[in-house]
């Protein structure tokens, strides 16, 4: 079955129809129509992708094989981005309840998901670019969704300016690759590059570096990370979840597809450059997170640090193991970071403050949320046997295998460092006494959603084989 085309139809159709449907069906008393509709669409899409990944529905040839490639790599990332989108739309039912124009919000959410799906399956540089923009532009608006909130506005402007810059840089890189090879199709580019004249090698390196720099903005790697904390803090936290857990992963799939083509041909040592970026990203992210006073900023920096671990997979690129680890960690990180951000969203909206203070003694007033958040944070820190441990373990093994033992050691030390702030949040929730006697209500639906996601973290940690096999299959199908 042609998954990308079907999803394009479903998501684009619902995104376009939703505002009209909302006017026709949704009433003033029933403002949650769009939310349920969107969640339904996401759930159907996710079910379709999951069925395809477990081979219940065979994955056929694409109707547009030059543009979209139906492969397991795309499926894995489709699972990741759709799970995140589903979590975001479900949690928005509660979080965005009092906001105006929610049908637009959900419509934009659907458009972003469409962009992420197309990016996951893209087989052509122009498709990468179109999908990149389709994913990016709705998020600029979503970040500035609270138009009366100056923080939200500032975040949107910052995000937009840097986003526009990165788009330009990416396009420049793509144009150089096109100029060198006369094609934008990735397979054709690869074929052309293998016969490339050696004197053109610096040009190719320049093009690839520009493309990575363009993608790097969404990947939140150092030195393109500056916008992250401000944007994540200013945006509605559900949108931050989407950015951190969703669009970042879509950026990684684009990076994998471009680098996998260019990497074997490059004569210069990109490994060391990527390894240094990985080291800088995780260390800076973790060090900065240690001192944060606001939960969303803390998670934003932690998200940067996690991107650093994933960069290990790119640094050792010809290695299948590293790529498997990268895919695996993308999946785990999306889930855990999603839970952490959404829990933070709920807590900050309940207490109307984003600081760390409400977390003191939270386990008493919000037991389910505290438990889910604890699992997510410990998973992010890499505590075994949660699923985050396995993917980090595979990444570090790949690093040692690729003669980057120092990088594995740095990554492991960073894990211990990250426990410094993850552990402090857990300590606040379970060990500290509540600072205020303010009674809070734990929204049951929201808490159960978080609990379900954290259960996935636990279960896939104890029984990691299915997801590992799926990611390994995706990598083996991708790298011949």
């Amino acid at each position: 079955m042609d998954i990308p085309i079907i999803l394009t139809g479903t998501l684009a159709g619902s995104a376009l129809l939703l505002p009209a449907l909302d006017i026709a069906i949704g009433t003033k008393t029933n403002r949650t129509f769009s939310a349920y509709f969107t969640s339904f669409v996401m759930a159907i899409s996710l079910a379709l992708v999951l069925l395809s990944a477990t081979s219940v529905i065979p994955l056929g040839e694409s109707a547009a094989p030059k543009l979209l490639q139906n492969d397991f790599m795309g499926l894995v990332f489709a699972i990741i981005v759709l799970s995140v989108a589903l979590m975001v739309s479900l949690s928005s039912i509660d979080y965005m309840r009092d906001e105006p124009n929610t049908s637009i919000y959900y419509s934009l959410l659907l458009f972003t998901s469409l962009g992420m799906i197309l990016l996951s399956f893209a087989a052509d540089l122009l498709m990468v670019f179109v999908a990149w923009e389709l994913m990016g532009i709705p998020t600029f608006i979503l970040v500035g969704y609270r138009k009366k909130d100056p923080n939200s506005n500032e975040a949107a402007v910052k995000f937009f300016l840097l986003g526009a810059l990165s788009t330009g840089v990416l396009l420049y890189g793509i144009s150089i690759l096109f100029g060198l090879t006369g094609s934008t199709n990735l397979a054709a580019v690869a074929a052309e590059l293998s016969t490339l004249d050696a004197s053109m090698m610096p040009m190719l390196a320049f093009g690839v570096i520009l493309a990575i720099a363009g993608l790097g903005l969404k990947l939140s790697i150092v030195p393109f990370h500056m916008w992250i904390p401000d944007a994540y803090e200013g945006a509605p936290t559900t949108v931050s979840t989407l950015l951190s857990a969703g669009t970042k992963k879509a950026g990684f799939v684009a990076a994998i597809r471009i680098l996998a083509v260019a990497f074997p041909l490059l004569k210069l040592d990109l490994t060391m450059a990527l390894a240094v970026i990985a080291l800088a990203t995780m260390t800076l992210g973790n060090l900065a997170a240690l001192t944060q006073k606001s939960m969303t900023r803390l998670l934003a920096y932690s998200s940067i640090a996690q991107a650093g671990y994933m960069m290990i997979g790119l640094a050792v690129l010809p290695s299948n193991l590293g790529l498997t680890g990268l895919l695996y960690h993308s999946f785990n990180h999306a889930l855990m970071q999603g839970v952490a951000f959404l829990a933070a969203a709920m807590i900050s909206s309940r207490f109307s403050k984003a600081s760390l203070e409400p977390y003191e003694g939270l386990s008493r007033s919000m037991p389910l949320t505290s438990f889910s958040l604890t699992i997510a944070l410990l998973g992010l820190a890499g505590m075994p046997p949660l699923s985050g441990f396995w993917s980090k373990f595979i990444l570090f093994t790949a690093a040692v295998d690729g003669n980057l033992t120092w990088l594995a050691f740095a990554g492991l030390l960073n894990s211990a460092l990250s426990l410094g702030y993850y552990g402090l949040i857990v300590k606040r929730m379970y060990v500290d006494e509540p600072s205020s006697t303010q009674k809070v209500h734990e929204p049951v639906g929201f808490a159960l959603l978080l609990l379900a996601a954290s259960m996935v973290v636990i279960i896939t940690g104890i029984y990691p084989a299915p997801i590992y096999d799926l990611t390994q299959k995706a990598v083996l199908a991708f790298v011949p």
Partner: protein
Amino acid sequence: MVDYLISIIIFLPITAGLLTYPISKASKRGARLFALAVALIELCLGLYAYSDILSKGTGAQYNFVEGPVAWIPGFKGIDYYVGIDGLSGPLVLISALLTVLVIVSSKDLISKNQGAYYSLALLFEGFMMGAYTSLNMVLFYVFWDIVLLPMFFLIGIWGGPRRKYAAIKFLLFTFTAGVFILLAFISIYILVPGNTFNIPELVGKIPLTLQPLLALLFFIGFGIKLPAVPFHSWLPDAQVEAPAPISVLLAGLFKTGSYGFIRFSLVLLPNASAEFGWAYIAFGIVTMFYGAIVAMRQKDIKKMIALTSISHMGFVLVGAFSGTVAGISGAIFEMFTHAASIGVMFMLSGYLYELRGTNDIAVIKGLKFTSPRFATLLVLGSMAAMGIPLFSSFLAKYLVILGAIQVNLIYAVIVIIPVIIVAYLLWMIRRTIMTQPESTAKHHDIGTIPTLALMIYFIPLIATLVVPWLLLGMTDPLAEALVKMLPAR
């Protein structure tokens, strides 16, 4: 059932731990009795495994082996693979015994939120059993690291006034220890031909050039857990802030450090262990002296015990790396007796706090008159911690000293350590027991059940002194096998 004995030993307490909390919502007493029943079954299973190995004399090999079964089939080498030998057998047995006693005593010493408490205690036991019996390095690491979580919550929620600081410090130190261990494991997996994490398959396979670096990684990682000076600073905080029953369990946790030294440093890296044996022994001696000397000037009885415990751990290091049968047997023996003797002392400090509301040696007076039962137990416990020949802790220290002297006469310096320990514990006894109580003090002693529970700690200590074969029958075959593996000196 015997086929799955170890899996039951590991997963019975874990499953029960997950059930205890829901049960406590219905009945607190029910949860306590349930936890106690599970701990008793666990003890029986441990005794069965132990006596079976002892009677067959197969301490040198792995018994009741299960696996290897692939955990992640796509990733070669990560297996579920468990077994018990002469090193893990005594540790499994003593941990099971201590858990039973801890649950019995917790009735008096823990008041708030008992359901969650018993739940965590059982989870802790299960994870410890997992760490002791794993024969796959990844499986070991998983249990070795996850065991920190129940302990973190036990210290953080039920601990003393500085519990918040102590709990997070404990978590960070011990999690960091794992960093070094995991790097060593991954390096072994990648660099040793065969790509496996299974310990039995790796014995004798690790190239000589790799051994020193791995030895260093293991030394830092297990040294933090042991804890060896200079990585010990988390321990007094954690031990003092933890409630007394948890201190007993925590004393069990460092055994995973000394266990790691023998299971990984000694078994997998025999050449590095022989070559750098002097360095391990030097650190062991420093640890011993540091613990004993700093303990001498403590005002708080619990801190004094914690430091005595550090000092005892030095004996394990010296014994294990002396590379002699007596030394290695003595090291395992010391781990066993340390669990019982330090365990009873910690528990006594908890009861002392219940009786007097303080653990300050200078304030407590005249226990002999107000609490005769307690005073008797405290004297006995101190004697066990000193290594007086009434208890087998004497035998353990004797064996270690014997092993050390066989290597080099200079190491005989460690015979001073028991003398220092005797000195300050006797001084503590003189001040708290042999003094006149304040005139207002009333007769106030511990109950019959706690007294009986505390007496049980002495049973293994006396039994193994009267019939040392009970323990040496397990450890000697293993020690002999290990010594054969070490390169000739």
